[in-house]
């Protein structure tokens, strides 16, 4: 055998192999439908973290779950509570008892009927101890008897009662006005017992529920494809298919959009440093979001256990320069915890942390570190997912050095490593590996200030990663959370917010904007501060040629 022959054989073998693989990889031609497929990127992930509703945590998971599953109620394009699985509902006992009337003809995508039993099964399942990592406990712990199930001392939730096939009663521990909003979050969405039990480990690979779409194929680490649910209670959607590739880097997704490979991009992450390049495009949408980027502090150990140090760091920040120059005004300067547009927003809070170089220096001196002398070595931790963060961090570093004389290190981490470290900080703030301070973000789950105030900074709540604690604050929010009357709740949240801003529980940096590119041939979608919604419902959404 000569060398030449071997080589040629090898080349033809390689060519044949790669052709074969190419043939395997190419998708089958889509069947003719009323509307073209919708190509919609999921930015910031290389794999969908979860598709099982109780495990919904990441916004990408929430987005896909909300297309496949539905609960008792939903949010419409105007952010109002609208009927979904429940046709109507009655509120009794001053907001403590909810009676839901389940739609008679409600079916799972496979045609099986859905009854109150299915909703009860799904709620009990969401609180099962093996889903302790999920979000049910976080959103729905107000349901009477739910925590007993989560802790394993009960099998079923005492507050969830099946009256008959079409009637479900849910009893709460405390009257709540935002309970219906909490039900629009996936934790309570209805799943098919049959599907789950047929394949407990991999049922989500072909998941279906009562949502407008169902999973056709989940190519792990690559993409997920949804097709219309023929049994959707509002009718079968017209879009033939939704193709959702996972794109880690939003800049890559933007490039794909720009060369015509995507119809919608930016839902989960947008390369904010490139907004000026697309802002004149009619397909570009920008909306204020209920979203705040802020600096959180580790309140449990020096130096940030000292309120004066936190105040000095806050007053040393020239936010106007930071946002308008460094970030080229792609976002809006934030001075409050409750974002504008949210009930309870208080413009008067804006001056509490205003830039004041001399005041900042004085506060640091009062804290025992004149001109930053003997200040401990600290690092500001950021994740590398958001292109804004490295810029902000570098600018903050300079501001703190110039004004306070403090050298701050920047600790840049992968998003998931950052989240892990934040969790570790929440679990044990005194540990050596805990973060000193960090840039983090919070986006509303539902439009209620409780979600921004009580659930972020009350002593001991899950999101209070930096262990901020103030008794007066706690008393105010505890009172507000159970107050049924919205106008009387808001001043309580505003007072609490003033305390948290004065003590720098958070150092808010900017309010986010939703940046989205939606090709003009996609009709029937609206952008709200909470994401992308169909104007009326998914059956009216179409993609033109």
């Amino acid at each position, binding site marked *: 055998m000569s060398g030449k022959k071997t080589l040629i054989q090898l080349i033809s073998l390689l060519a044949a192999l790669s052709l074969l693989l190419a043939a395997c990889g190419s998708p089958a031609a889509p069947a003719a439908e009323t509307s073209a497929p919708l190509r919609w990127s999921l930015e910031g992930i290389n794999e969908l973290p979860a598709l099982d509703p109780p495990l919904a945590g990441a916004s990408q998971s929430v987005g896909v779950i909300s297309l496949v599953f539905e609960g008792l109620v939903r949010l419409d394009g105007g952010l109002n509570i609208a009927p979904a699985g429940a046709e109507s509902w009655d509120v009794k006992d001053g907001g403590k008892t909810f009676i839901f009337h389940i739609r008679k003809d409600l079916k799972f995508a496979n045609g099986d009927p859905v009854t109150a039993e299915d909703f009860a099964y799904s709620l009990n399942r969401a609180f099962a101890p093996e889903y302790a990592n999920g979000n049910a406990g976080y959103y729905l712990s107000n349901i009477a008897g739910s925590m007993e199930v989560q802790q394993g001392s009960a099998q079923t939730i005492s507050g969830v009662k099946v009256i008959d096939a079409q009637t479900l009663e849910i009893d709460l521990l405390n009257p709540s006005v935002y309970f219906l909003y909490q039900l629009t979050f996936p934790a309570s969405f209805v799943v098919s017992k049959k599907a789950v039990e047929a394949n407990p480990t991999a049922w989500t690979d072909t998941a279906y529920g009562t949502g407008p779409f169902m999973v056709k194929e989940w190519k792990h680490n690559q993409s997920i494809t949804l097709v219309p649910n023929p049994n959707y209670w509002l009718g079968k959607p017209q879009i033939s298919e939704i193709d959702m590739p996972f794109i880690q880097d939003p*800049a890559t997704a933007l490039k794909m959009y720009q060369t015509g490979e995507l119809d919608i991009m930016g839902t989960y992450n947008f390369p904010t440093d490139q907004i000026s390049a697309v802002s004149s495009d009619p397909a570009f949408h920008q909306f204020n979001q209920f979203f705040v980027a802020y600096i959180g502090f580790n309140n449990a150990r020096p130096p940030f256990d000292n309120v004066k140090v936190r105040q000095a760091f806050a007053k040393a920040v020239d936010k106007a320069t930071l946002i308008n120059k460094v970030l080229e005004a792609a976002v809006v300067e934030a001075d409050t915890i409750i974002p504008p547009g949210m009930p309870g927003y208080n413009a008067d809070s804006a001056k509490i942390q205003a830039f004041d170089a001399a005041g900042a220096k004085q506060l640091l001196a009062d804290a025992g570190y004149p001109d930053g002398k003997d200040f401990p070595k600290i690092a500001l931790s950021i994740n590398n997912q958001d292109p804004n963060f*490295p810029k902000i961090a*570098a600018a903050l570093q300079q501001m703190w050095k110039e004004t306070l004389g403090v050298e701050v290190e920047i*600790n*840049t981490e*992968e998003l998931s490593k950052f989240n892990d470290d934040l969790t570790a900080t929440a679990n044990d703030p005194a540990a050596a590996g805990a973060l000193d301070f960090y840039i983090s973000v919070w986006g509303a789950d539902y439009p209620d200030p409780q979600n921004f105030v009580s659930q972020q900074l009350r002593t001991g709540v899950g999101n209070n990663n930096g262990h901020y604690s103030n008794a007066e604050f706690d008393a105010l929010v505890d009172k507000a959370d159970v107050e049924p009357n919205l106008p009387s709740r808001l001043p309580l949240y505003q007072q609490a917010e003033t305390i948290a801003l004065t003590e720098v529980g958070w150092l808010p940096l900017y309010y986010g904007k939703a940046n989205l590119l939606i090709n003009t041939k996609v009709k029937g979608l609206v952008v709200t501060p909470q994401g992308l919604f169909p104007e009326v419902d998914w059956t009216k959404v179409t993609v033109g040629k």
Partner: protein
Amino acid sequence: MAEIPTIAEQTAPARPWWMYFLRNRAATAGMVFILVALLLALAGPTVYQRLLPADQQRSRDGIFQDYESINAEASPVHWLGADYLGRDTLTRLLVAVRVSLLVAFVVEAINIGLGGLLGLLAGYFGGWVDMLISRLADMLFAFPGLLLAILISAVFGSTARELYGGTGRLLLVAAALSLVSWPLMARLIRSETLALKSRDFMLASRSLGASDFQLIARHLLPNVAWIITVAATLDVASVIVNEATLSLLGLGIEEPGASLGLMIFRAAGKIERYPLQVFIPAVMITALVLAFSFVGDGLRDAFDPRSRQSG
């Protein structure tokens, strides 16, 4: 990548090696470029800063963020413009070259010290010493390229920074990259040593009672020195690219430090609007890589009589 042939004959060249080297125009140009780059990287930032009056000097220190000069074009103050934070691009470029060369220097020091020494020992002593060293090299060879360096910089990056700051991070990157380099060096030196060991002059010295140390130091080392030089020079090119790749993936040099990879990474998103911010570091890294390749090739041709003819 380059295969370095063993010397067929140990005859003294008719002309000194540097005469051959200087006749190679590409290699000479590469050498001049490297020397100029080195000089600029070391002294450039200071001189460039001193050209301004004392009170304005910090606008060129490469770290100071002048928020009025964000993404500025070239100007009398910022000769190559300023970056997304208003930092001087020329200074950052020169500091980045300094970092590239410093990392390359540390890697090659480890590469020569560790790879060269282990290669000599393996080739000279054979037996279990050879066995041990060769298997160790085989193992590191099996890691595809950067994977081990990526893993080590990722896992220990924050620890290194916590302990020793930016320098710790830089040294960690260099140490991780040298793991990619030294096995090839060890392999080359081992095979050359094997070839030299059985040669007459070695056998003669040994029969005259020379110790192992004397044999290695007096006879082996001078004869493999040129291979070490050539291999290390050629390796610099890939070290520079690898350091940039690590920084590009966010695992190498961090802000406010400068690295060519980091400069490209930060500017890549805005390449349409500010193409120079990508092209300046990109051209620099390409030029450095080419220069070290030319010099490496030139040195090999100059030292190795056999490859000289094929030129």
